[in-house]
Structures are given as structure tokens and as C-alpha cells.
């Protein structure tokens, strides 16, 4: 992975860059004027690599994750995802891109309470119009060790089990890139370790590019590289 030193702009020429951020800034209007959440962030992530974004609360980690995943647009700068410039795309085009290439894992799991485990896992495939969603969902649940729980609804599952279902959902459509936001933040240490193991195992077996936002340094250290955000700026850099 090539990345910027502090706030210097350095555009990668790496043809294999799966994710690229060039001079990315994000500001919002607050009651007392403009607030800069991110300032001139630059880096690339190579295909199949894993990157941890760490930093204190309010440092802009989650905002950066959202921008990289195409959930939001930067105030300034360029973002390339899976070979496509996404900062200029409209929301519908970005949604189509996410559907095909991106998987998500959230701190609070975000399972749909009205769907059972299997139906939750089927979602990304169904969104892509796949008719074999159920078979793939069952296989994905098998991979996370939840065959017996596929008919259970989220409220009938423990936190660890819910996150394993979320893992199955994140990988079921074989995404090229996985974005994870504090995936173990709501879990106890032991369960968090199990979920972390599963995450990296699946990431390896699916050769997925992983971008992980975390407070958990142990988890961050398992990534090939990490960046540290401080006040919306890249404070330290690391090379994959």
C-alpha cells in the first residue's frame, strides 16, 4: 500500500489499487459555522490488502469509511473504488457499485429484525437479483457455524451470533471489498476474538480487500497496515 505522508498529496500510480483517496476532505455546516471533519486525506489500498483505520472518537474514522465506501460524497477530492471514480457518481450509481463489489460489517450488526438469519444473509444476493440466494445464504451461515440458527430472528440470537450472521451477510455475495466499522465494538473480549478470527479467515479465503475502523489495537494489528487519524488528518502512516 502506498500512502500519503501526513497531509501531502501523493497520487498513487499503483494499477492494482482497489481503493484510492486523493486529497479527500469533508466539511459540514454546524450551528457555529463550518466544521472540517476530514482534511486532505490521501492513500491507496491494494487489491486483497487489509487496512485498519484507528484514531480517537471524533477523529473522522467512520466518516472516512463512509466516503471510501461511497455512502457519502466528499466536499473535495477524488475517491476511486474498484477502478471507478465514485466521488462524481450519483447515489443510484454508487448504490449499484456497492451492491456488486462491497460488503459491510457494522458495530451494531444492523440485522433486519423482521427477517430471520437466513433471510438477512440472502439480502445482498436478492438485491443483485440472484435466484440462488437461499442456497448461498445457507452455505454462508454454515461457514460461520450457524446452520442450526438460520431460522432464528435477530432478537433470538446473542450479540456474537448476530455479528456472525452479519459476517455471513457481508461475504455471501463475494464482495471485492469489505468495510468493517468497529465489528467487535459491541462484543465481549472472548466473543470479539472469535468474530475477529472469523473475519480474517473469511477475508483471506475470499481474497477480499478489507478496510477496518477500530479502537481495538489487537484487531488493528492483524491488518497488513494501519493509518491513524487525528482531528481529521492522517497522523501516522504505515506501509503494507
Amino acid at each position, binding site marked *: 500500500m502506498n500512502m500519503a505522508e501526513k497531509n501531502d498529496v501523493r497520487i498513487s500510480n499503483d494499477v492494482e489499487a482497489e481503493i484510492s483517496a486523493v486529497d479527500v476532505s469533508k466539511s459540514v455546516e454546524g450551528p457555529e459555522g463550518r466544521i472540517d471533519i476530514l482534511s486532505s486525506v490521501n492513500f491507496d489500498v491494494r487489491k486483497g490488502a487489509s487496512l485498519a483505520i484507528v484514531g480517537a472518537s471524533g477523529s473522522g474514522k467512520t466518516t472516512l469509511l*463512509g466516503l471510501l465506501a461511497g*455512502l457519502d460524497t466528499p466536499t473535495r477530492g477524488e475517491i476511486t473504488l474498484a477502478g471507478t471514480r465514485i466521488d462524481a457518481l450519483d447515489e443510484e450509481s454508487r*448504490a449499484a457499485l456497492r451492491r456488486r463489489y462491497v460488503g459491510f460489517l457494522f458495530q451494531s450488526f444492523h440485522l433486519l429484525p*423482521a427477517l430471520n438469519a437466513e433471510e438477512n444473509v440472502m439480502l445482498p444476493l436478492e438485491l443483485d437479483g440472484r435466484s440462488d440466494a437461499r442456497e448461498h445464504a445457507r452455505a454462508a451461515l454454515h461457514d460461520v457455524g450457524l446452520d442450526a440458527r438460520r431460522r432464528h430472528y435477530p432478537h433470538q440470537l446473542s450479540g456474537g451470533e448476530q455479528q456472525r450472521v452479519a459476517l455471513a451477510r457481508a461475504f455471501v455475495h463475494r464482495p471485492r471489498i469489505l468495510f468493517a466499522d468497529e465489528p467487535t465494538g459491541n462484543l465481549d473480549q472472548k466473543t470479539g476474538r472469535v468474530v475477529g478470527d472469523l473475519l480474517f479467515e473469511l477475508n483471506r479465503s475470499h481474497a477480499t480487500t478489507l478496510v477496518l475502523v477500530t479502537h481495538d489495537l489487537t484487531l488493528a494489528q492483524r491488518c497488513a497496515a494501519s493509518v491513524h487519524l487525528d482531528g481529521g488528518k492522517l497522523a501516522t502512516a504505515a506501509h503494507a
Partner: protein
Amino acid sequence: MKPMSFAWRTLRREFRYGELATLAIALILAVAALGAVATLGQRVEHSVVASAAEFIGGDVGLSSREPPSPELSNEAARLGLRTSTTANFPTVLFAGGKSQLADIRAADAGFPLRGELRVSDTSGVERIAHTPDMGGVFAEHRLLAALDLKIGDPLQIGDRTLRIAGEIQREPDGGELFALAPRVLMSLDDAKSGGLLATGSRARYRIMAAGEERAVADFSTFIKAHKPDSGELVTVEQSQQNLRSAFDRGEAFLRLAALLAALLSGIAVALASQRYARRKTDEVALLRCLGASANEVTLALASTLAMLAVPACAIGAALGLGLQEVVFAFAKNLLPVTSSVIPLAPTAASFAVGLAVLFGFSLPPLLRLRDVPPVRIFQRAAGSRVRRFDALYLIPFAVSALLIYVESDTPKLAAILSASLFGVALVSLVAGLLLMRLVRGARGFAGAIRFGLANLSRRRALSLLQIVSLALAITALDLLAVVGPSLLSAWRAELPADTPNYFLINIQPEQRDDIVARLKAAKAENINALPLAVSKLVAINGKPPRAEDYQDKRAAGWINGETRLSWSDDVPPSNRVVAGQWFSAHPAEPEVSVDEMWTEMFHLALGDTLTLRIGDRDIVAKVTSVRGVRWDSFRVNFFVLLDPASAQGISYSDIASFHLPAVSADALAPLTRDYPNLSLIDLNALIDRIRDIIARVGSAVMAVLGFSLAAGILVLFAALAATADERRFESALLRTLGANRRQLAQAVLAEFTVVGLLAGVIAALGAGGAGTWLARSVFRISTYLPPLMPLTLSIIAAAILVALAGLAGTRRITRASPLLVLRRA
């Protein structure tokens, strides 16, 4: 994504959450109430038409001075219609040295085509009959009493002596209220052979036809094209105005109740959708995050609604059909002619209205979910910015306006209801804002109460939504539970026990004093006698009126026909001057007072002149006053009243209305015998029928009211549930911080009592105002006053009910573990 299968899967689970159940119940109530009332309305309309057909003895016909031409009978036969010919004429009958003027109906064997002729024999046993055979007659009791006859006695009619074969108990005749009494029914062949219908007789012929609807319509067209100059088309629409008016009012009551049920359901749908949309926001954010397009999200939500709506509307439609069947079974004794065929079009329409209510009221919050940004999955605040104005929220208003317009059937009812509800919404919005300003900080109250009151301004938008929807719901409930019954009572009071039940016409001026004295002696009440003169309207403001100049088709009747007029020193009972001044004692020039309807029909204004030709004299009279006349008061009323000074020298007869108790009815026979020129009209049957209609409409309204009340309660709970999620979290937080249940209950009670009180006051004012407006403009009950005490009680009831409902909703919250609630939040 396959939105349908996704919707189906989520619907199964989400139904347990409550909002969708509220939506479904609201829809069921709306469709059931609207369907039941519309179906009932159509069936009653059919029955009224059928009943009117009975009153005129057929579906359509021609009344003329000449015998009907054979081509009419031939055309009717060609169209497959049955026909019957009758001739009506007055003649004097003789028996045992006595004589009596009678109204003869000579009919062929086909009479009656519709309805029943019921006669009784010597033992009083009734049977259904047709025209008597040649040589026999059926006669009314009054004739038998006047001539001291019994069944089997001979009676001389013209040069024929016929035998009385039965006493008429009931005949299809009510179409001609002013027919001469008493009635004798005889064979047309007897009348012809007895020379009673010879050239120059005063007979009026009538050929009636009955059969299939289309054939009747064709025959009606044929009659119009071929009728002689003296001929008049006889249709069911022209008859039974009094009954029709009663049914129309009854239907307006029912429509009002159903409409309010539908509007209340709409409010419940809107509130439940708002809450459902809030619950779905995170889910939509996730779907968008996973790559679902905005259209897919919309389609999935619309599919969920459709899957909910179709079965709910179907259940509502079935319930509506069941309800109307029960009400109809209860009401059908009112009408002798009822059909077992249930029209399905109103049910289908109510189904469609149900869908419109659901989509109209739920779309705004649900369509807004399209705009939920995927980044909300990380930042809950994203996408929650409130728009200053959102055109989508005009949809429910448009749907409400359309609903009111389509379902109310009369623009007046629609306008009054819309304006009243809109007024209530606006006033409650402003009052809500003022209240929040007032309670902000809520100094001077105990801690928990202060917290409860402060809650109002902290949850500003939700509190306003709650106040407005509660005010609307309570207004509707007040209208239904308090104002509706009082309107019905006022309607009932229009026909008090001493309502005039007889008319005496053709009283000669010299007979008047004796007749009035005899009526008083017979314990008659409310005797109201007025002179009656016949005139012709020959000019308005000096110009001869032309029928084609007036949109109102009734104008032609007065322009081409006669105008009956009267005069009186005082404003007659059931009349009130609405514009101008009543006649002065010595007017400088002839003055005239006209009915409101006339001023509208002939575009008259105060100061205009009418030229009335009476005999060979033309009176040019200035319009000096306009009267509002209660035509359904069963009193003698006139469209045109002349000032008494100008009426000097006009030839006239008197007409009187009076109430005579049933026990004194026998006193009328000697009166008509002593004064054979009199025509007596018995209105008892008609009044009884109208009273019956009012009673049964009242019961039917109560049945529909049940739905409306259920819808109102649903709104109440939906409104309270609207803030339940937030309150649940707050309560859990407060309990975690050490608040006890009593303190929480005090806070909730303070908040909801104030909300309930405010909504109750606005609703009582709104309902009282709307009721008065409806009474004056739609139900034409000018004496109506809103019931102050029940409305005041409704304010207290609203405050208590809302407070208790709020408390009940919070009890569940306070009993749950705070940790559980906080975790779920």
C-alpha cells in the same frame, strides 16, 4: 431485489409491531363504514323509487284530459310493459236519500301495476285485491260513514246502481295528495257504460306502465314525444317529495357518520405511517447501504402496503356488506317494496376509497424514506433534517378533500365538513404553539409536573402532531356522539305530536267560521286557515317571464301554470322573514312577500315587481320581503303572499291545516257530509312514515357510529403511540437516574391532561360550530342549538380519557426493565 417477496417476508413479522395492525384496522373500519352506508343508501334509494312506483301505481305514465291513445298501449306492449288505465273524476253519490261528493277512480283489470290494493270485507278481514268486477265498488270508510252504508249495500253512481264489495284499506294512490276524498274504486267498464266518462266529463285519465328499467325509460321517451298538450308525464321522481326529503336527510346523516369514520381512519393511518416510517428509517439506510436503489425501496414499501391493504379492504368490504344487511333488514319494514339484490358497486367503490385512504395518508412519510442517505447507517443524525415545506404532505389534504366531496354527495356537506375540520386543525396548531410558549420552563410546578409540561415543548413537532390529531379525532367524536344525536332530536322535534295531520281545502269564506268552530269542538289543534286564490304570473319587472331564461326547470311550471297565493296580517307559522320588512298596515302600493326559493329561481331582489293576474285584474306588487319557509312543517304555506290591503275584492276559498287526535277522527265524516264541497286530505300515514324513518335512521346512524367511534379510539391510540418510543426511552433513563413510578406517572398525567384539555376545548367549539352550520345549511333545522352541557362534559371526558390513555401507555414502559429499554434504544 424482489420487492414483493421482500415485502411479504417483512410484513409477516412487522405486523406484530402495532403500526401495521393500526393501518389494517383503520382500513377495515373505513371501508366497512363507507361500504355499508353507500350500499345501504343505494338500496334505500331503490326502495324509495319502488315505493314511489307503488304510490303512483306504476313505473311511468301519462296523465291527461283525454283517454290515452291506442298507440300508447301498442308501444307499451311492443316494449314488453304491462299497462293499466284509470280515470279519476269527482261525482256525487246517492244512497238512502243521502248524497256525498266522492273521488271516483275507474280502473281496468290491470290496476294496480305496482303496490297493493287492500280491501276488507264485512268481518274486517283484509285481502289484496284488484279492481272490483263490474257491478261492484270498493269505498273508503269515510264514504261508508258519511252515507251510513255497509259492505253489500247498493250505491248509486250516475245512472248505475252498484254494490259495495269491500272497504278500501290501502291503495296505491299517495302520488296525488290533493285528490278528493273520499275515494271510490270501480270498474272502468262500468264507468264507461254508465256514461260517467262521456265527452265533457271532468275525468282525468292516466295510463301507467310497469316493467324492465330500460323499457320504462324508452316508454318515457315515447310519451314525451307523443303526449297531448294537456298531458303530463307521471314519474316516480315527481312523487313522494316528503318521503324523499326524509330519506335524503337520513342519508346525509349516515354519510356524515361514515365520512367521519373514514377521515378518522385516515388520521390513524397517517399517524401509524409516520411511526412506521421512523421505525423503517434504519432499515432503509441499511438496504441503501447494501446497494438497493431508491426505486427498489419505494417498491418494497408500496408492496408491503398493498399486501396489507388488499386483505384489509376485503375484510372491510365484507364487514360493510354484513352491516348494511343487518341495518337494511331492520329498516326494510319502512318500505313495502324491497329487493333482495345487493348492489355491489358501492362496495367496490369503498374498496377503492380504502386504498386511496391508505396510500393518500401513508405515502408522504413513506415516500420520504427514498431520501434516507445510506450514510445514516453510521450517523443517525444524517437525513433527519426537517424540511420547511414538503409538498408531499399536501397529498392527505387532497385525498381528504376528494373523499369529503365524493362521499358527502352534497357540496354543502363537503364544504362545511372540510372547512370545520381545517379550522380545527389550524386553531389547534396555533393553540399548540401558544401552549408550548406558555409552559416553557413551567415554573411554579412540582418537579415531575414541570418535567411533564416541559416535555411538550421539547418534543415540539411530535407534540403539535399529537395535539392536532387529537383535536381532529375528538371533534369527529363530538360530532358523532354529541352533535349527531342532538341534530336527530332536533329533526324529531320538527314533527311534534301536534303536527297538522289534516288539510281541508275549498272552504268557502262563508263556511269558514262554522268549520273552524266545529274543528275546535272536535278538539282540533294548531288550526291554521289561510285564503287561497289562483293567479297567473304575467310579468317580472314589467316583462313577461320566459321559461328558457331560467336555469331552474321548476320555473316553467309557474310561468306556464298557475300561481297560488294568499295573504295574511302576520307572518304565518313556519315562516320567517329573512330579508326586507313584513307588510305595513297601509302600504302605499301593492306589496308581495316571496319564498327564498322563488328569489333564487326567478333571480328576484327586494324592490322588484311581480305582475299577478287574478281573474281579469292585474296586480303589480313590489317584493318587500323574502321568507324562509319550512315546507316540511305540514302547515299551509305559500310561495307568494300578498299584502292583505291589496287582496281586497279577490275571489278566494280558504285552506286549513290542523291536528286532530285519532280519537276525534270520526268528527270529520259529518263535516264533509254537511259541506260536500270540502276536500279533506289525511296526512297521518305520511307523517307516521316519516316519524318511522327518523327513528330508524337514528338507529342506523348509531350502527355506523360504532365504526366511527372505533376509528376515533384508534386515532387516539395512534396519536399517543406516536410519541411512545421516545417517551419509553426517556422514562427508562429517568428511572435509571432514580425517578420512581409515581413521579413518572405525574409527569405523564400533567402532559396528557393539558393536551387532552386543549384538544377537547377546540374540538367542542369546532363540533358545536360545525353542528350549527350543518343544521342550518344541510339538514335545514333552523331551530337547532348545539348542546352546551354535553359538549362541556366532552371537554372533561377528553382530558380524562387522553390522560388515562397516556398513563396506560406509560405503565407498560415503567414496568419494563430500564436496562432492556435502553439496550433496545
